[in-house]
């Protein structure tokens, strides 16, 4: 099982994801925005990062860019539901262009999450 960092500004979704992944036996920590996410990443050194795209302070695109610049092989899953004119499709396609290992459009099922996590971790 893997160490996983979840970065999302929606507390409910954050907690739900943590609960789902913990049930699968993963060690999960959370962060509420990009800045907090980078801080936790440095402390926790996770094997997988699941990050939302639209967030205050530091968005998911910045987080992904910074993490991949540090280590091009770091496993990242981007999740997004879009906001107003910015669609989830655009956000996730942008993340894919940057080189993330998986994308999930909100809302998603537990099975979809599990499959994406296993694929990203190469299980």
């Amino acid at each position: 099982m893997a160490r996983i960092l979840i970065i999302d500004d929606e507390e409910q979704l954050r907690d739900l994801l943590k609960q789902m992944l913990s049930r699968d036996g993963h060690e999960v920590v959370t962060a509420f925005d990009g800045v907090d996410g980078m801080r936790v990443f440095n402390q926790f050194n996770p094997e997988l990062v699941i990050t939302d795209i639209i967030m205050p302070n530091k968005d998911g695109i910045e987080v992904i860019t910074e993490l991949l610049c540090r280590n091009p092989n770091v496993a990242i899953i981007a999740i997004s539901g879009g906001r107003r004119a910015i669609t989830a499709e655009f956000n996730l396609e942008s993340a894919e262009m940057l080189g993330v290992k998986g994308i999930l459009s909100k809302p998603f099922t537990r099975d979809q999450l599990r499959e994406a996590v296993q694929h990203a971790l190469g299980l």
Partner: protein
Amino acid sequence: MAIKTKNIIDFKSEAGRILLTSMGALLLLMVSAVFLSSYLETQLGSFKEVVFLGLAMVIALGAQWFLLKTIQSPQVLSPEERVHTTNEKLRHILNSITRQVESALGIKNTAVGGIENPADMLAATLIQCVAIMSEQVQSLLSALQMGSNESLEEARQSFIPLIDKTAETITQYLHVSQNIDNQLRERINETQQLLLNLRRELATVPQNQQQDTSQLFACIRQMGDVLETHLLIDNVVKKQLEVVTHDTNDSAFTLITLMRDLSDQAGNLVRYITETISKINAMENGVDESVGYIVRIGHFIQDIPEKIQRDIQAIQSASGVIDSLSYLVDSIKEISFQTDILAVNAAIQAAHAGDAGLGFKIVADEVRKLAVNSNKAAEMIEAGLDTARHTIHEGLKFKFLEEVMQQMNEAAQMMDSVKKLQEGHEDMRQYYKTLFTVINQSNMKLAQDISEILGSIQYQDIVRQRIERMQAAMQRRNELLQEFAIQLDVTSGNNMDDFATALNAVLNGYLEEESYHGNSLNSSDDGDQPPKFELF
């Protein structure tokens, strides 16, 4: 071929010797049989027949002795004849070697030519293709920086067939390399066979005769040295060619992989930008709509003071008219008052007149009624004017409030539009930020890939340099071998002391040059070592 012919001659000679010996033995047996038969007859016949039979036996023995002597020749030759025979044999060996060398040079003309022309041509084609691709990549990046999606797609489309062309060229290049390698392998085998035959030929010469032809033997040993060095050079070239082919194979594979990745990445980028631009257009249309709405509200607000001013002026004008009508009412009231006084005075005067004034009194009363009615009418008009004035004032108030309400509504709508505009601006900012981040990262990746491709292109040039150095060494070797062949024809092996040394010098010079360029042949054994690059 010469060796094979020689072997056939030897075989025939040996077979002839066995045949003659057998025939002699058979003849001797037959003579012995006749002699025994005659001996038995002499016991009964004449002495003369015995003499004839003895003579026949002597002749038979002599014939057998002659035949044996003829077929066991060398040992019984004179010293001059022995030297002559050995010299002839050695000359035969020399001629055989000369033909082999000439044959090797014949191979050189095709094999080394194969190294020189097609490989070099293909290497040049390869470098040209890669250079074109490099230019295409640069134009791809320029198109990307210009932001023109059409030019980007155009550059990418022209980029794709070049990848296939390069792959085809590299395949041809490797095929030619393989052919050259096969030819070299074949030539090495032939040369090895030549050396083996040479040693066999030398072994057939008896030891006691080798001293008589010491000069020729020394020459042949030198020739052996020359051929061994020649073989060594071919081996070195073959090994180096294997290194070059292996490195080219790796480099070409990397190059093609990078090119395909580059094309795929550019394609993804084009698709991403195309989709993104259409989304941005929709977003900009929304923002334009909000801006247009705000502009219309601005124009409306701008017109409000003027409209109010016009309304106020109209009201003020109406109010002036009402005020002027008020003066008229006052005049009517004054007239009515004076008429009333006049009627009262007339009534008094009519009373003073008695009966004569009765009719006048009636008129005075009517006039008085008229005055009263006039007054009432004036008061009614005044009341109406007051009502009108009041209505104008009230109307003015109402109009103002209505304007204010409308302004409030417009302001509320404007706030909503401003909010939408702000959200649109935030979305646009986020959108462009994401877009530029993706494009920037993609550009960095493209630049990195291009850098690696340039490295591979550079390595292709190193391959070309290696082949050129190989060609130079082979050329020097060939010149020496040609000179060597001429010497063999002219002097039968004299003045060839320096050939092996010269060939060794060629080999050592080549190895030293390769070592200087960091392409030591020993490194070829270690296939995991990364290729060493040098600037060109």
